[in-house]
């Protein structure tokens, strides 16, 4: 378990991580989602005690990272920057890591086998492809057989086969009861692997929710309606007990009523329609909107958002985005 409490990091003027409070639980894959520059890597470095927090606290199974005895046996991490000496072989890279934490040398061979690098174990790391480097990083994370694993953008630059391998690996690690915390800037990637989702933007917590709930909230289908007789259409819908909300550019959006029914209602009331189209909001769109709102929120710090936007925000995010 990883617990963050008001974790904050400032680099000079720049607030990279802003009062993050959340918990990463065992037995599931927790996705850490946010656009580039949101503060994911910085958060992960603070979890490992590499960057000192400006404020707040983070604990691994209740203990500060610095106080863990043989930390690689508690938590293994794949960081963004690879951190391998190009002139050293994969085997020796894993060997020094193992020795520093009292891990038997046998584990070096085991993890090399597990990630499929046995054949190139004695080759210098500088000849490794991106995918091989990523596999070596994962081997290092697995070395101490830790209960907690953390991966920073593990699928970046991998081929489809490598991506599939990593997804399967993360799921199986979680199934074994381990804590798996994985970052990405791609919603689509998270949707495929994560059971739980922590979304950040500009260093702030935007959502901390189960994946199922996130999908249910955000993959809503609705009907977009455009009419020159907007008021007449609203009356007609209202009389039939159908609620419509304002969409962009003067359109109306109707949840939970088929397009056909709306068309018939309009016809029965003699309302002209210019558009009647079923819509599906993708998770990616939902994510982009969520993070765009975080930018908006920052830009307007102090001044309230325009009412229309405020309404949409509340509808889509309920309390979840405000939890932070």
């Amino acid at each position, binding site marked *: 378990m990883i617990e963050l409490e008001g974790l904050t990091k400032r680099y000079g003027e720049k607030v990279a991580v802003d009062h993050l409070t959340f918990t990463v639980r065992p037995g599931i894959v927790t996705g850490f989602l946010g656009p580039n520059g949101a503060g994911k890597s910085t958060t992960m*470095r603070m979890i*490992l*005690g*590499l*960057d*000192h927090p400006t404020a707040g606290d983070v604990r691994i199974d209740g203990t500060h*990272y*610095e106080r*863990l*005895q*043989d*930390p*690689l046996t508690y938590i293994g*991490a794949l*960081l963004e*920057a*690879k*951190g*391998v*000496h*190009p*002139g*050293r*072989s994969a085997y*020796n890279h894993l*060997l*020094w*890591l193992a*020795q*520093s*934490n*009292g891990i038997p040398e046998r584990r070096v061979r085991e993890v090399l086998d597990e990630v499929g690098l046995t054949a190139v174990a004695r080759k210098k790391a500088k000849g490794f492809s991106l995918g091989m480097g990523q596999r070596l990083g994962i081997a*290092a994370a697995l070395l101490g057989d830790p209960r907690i694993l953390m991966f920073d953008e593990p699928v970046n630059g991998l081929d489809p086969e490598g991506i599939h391998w990593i997804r399967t690996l993360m799921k199986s690690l979680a199934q074994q009861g381990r804590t798996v915390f994985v970052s990405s800037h791609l919603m689509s990637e998270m949707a495929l692997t994560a059971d739980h989702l922590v979304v950040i933007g500009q260093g702030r917590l935007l959502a901390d929710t189960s994946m199922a709930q996130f999908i249910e909230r955000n993959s809503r289908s609705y009907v977009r309606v455009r009419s020159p007789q907007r008021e007449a259409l609203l009356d007609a819908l209202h009389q039939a007990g159908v609620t419509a909300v304002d969409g962009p550019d003067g359109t109306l959006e109707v949840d939970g009523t088929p397009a056909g029914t709306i068309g018939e209602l309009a016809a029965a009331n003699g309302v002209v329609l210019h558009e009647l189209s079923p819509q599906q909001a993708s998770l990616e769109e939902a994510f982009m909107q969520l993070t765009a709102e975080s930018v908006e929120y920052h830009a307007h710090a102090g001044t309230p958002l325009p009412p229309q936007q405020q309404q949409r925000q509340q509808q889509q995010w309920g309390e979840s985005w405000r939890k932070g």
Partner: protein
Amino acid sequence: MATAQVVRSEWTKIRSVASTVWTLSTAVVVTIALGMLISALSKNEFDNLSQREKLSFDPTFISFAGTGLGQLAMIVFGVLVVSNEYSTGMIRASLAAVPKRGVFLFSKLAVATALVFVVGMATSFATFFLGQLMLGDLKASIGDDGVLRAVFGGGLYMTLIALFSMGVATMLRSPMLSLGILMPFFFLISNILGNVSATEKVGRFLPDQAGSKIMQVVTPVDDDTPYGPWGGLGIMALWVIAAVVGGYVLLKRRDAQ
């Protein structure tokens, strides 16, 4: 226990990169070869020396004439041992594995220093005996007064130079910046400061000038250096302590990058 693990791990790091071998072997070869060359030249020139110069003639010190150049390779070794961590981004893996930064740094320095000590001692004795061979009948003997101290001190000098470089590299992190400061400093600036009369008195408190006093057996005529061989080495050791402590404090405070 835990420190023993880290020492072992640092030994694996040091022996598994090529730069260890080429920097140390360059230091050995340059120190010995140049020492032999200058010893041979000195022998041939001896008859042309003035009486005063003959009195100051120090066969032991002459055989260490290669140290000035050879130490540059020791400096490269010391700098690379530390700054490789930063230039490759390995520092993050290292500090994630060993979050107690003092244990990390002092294990690394202990391993690298022990290695330089062994290589430096071997080089020092080899350069002395081979240099004396070149000097023929002008040679000093290891049993002469102060000679063993000078030869042993030569090994210590090389060790301290490397350790000083490790401390500086821990502070500066970048290999280019560290080498860009240390190499010209020890090769040029220190010599200039030491030979210009206006700065001479300051120059002799610099780490290399103070430290190299240990390799001197015959005190030059009208020498007014205010410290003896061990005093000089002590001054050098203070520089080393300052560099290492500075490195430790910065490592402790900074983010790992």
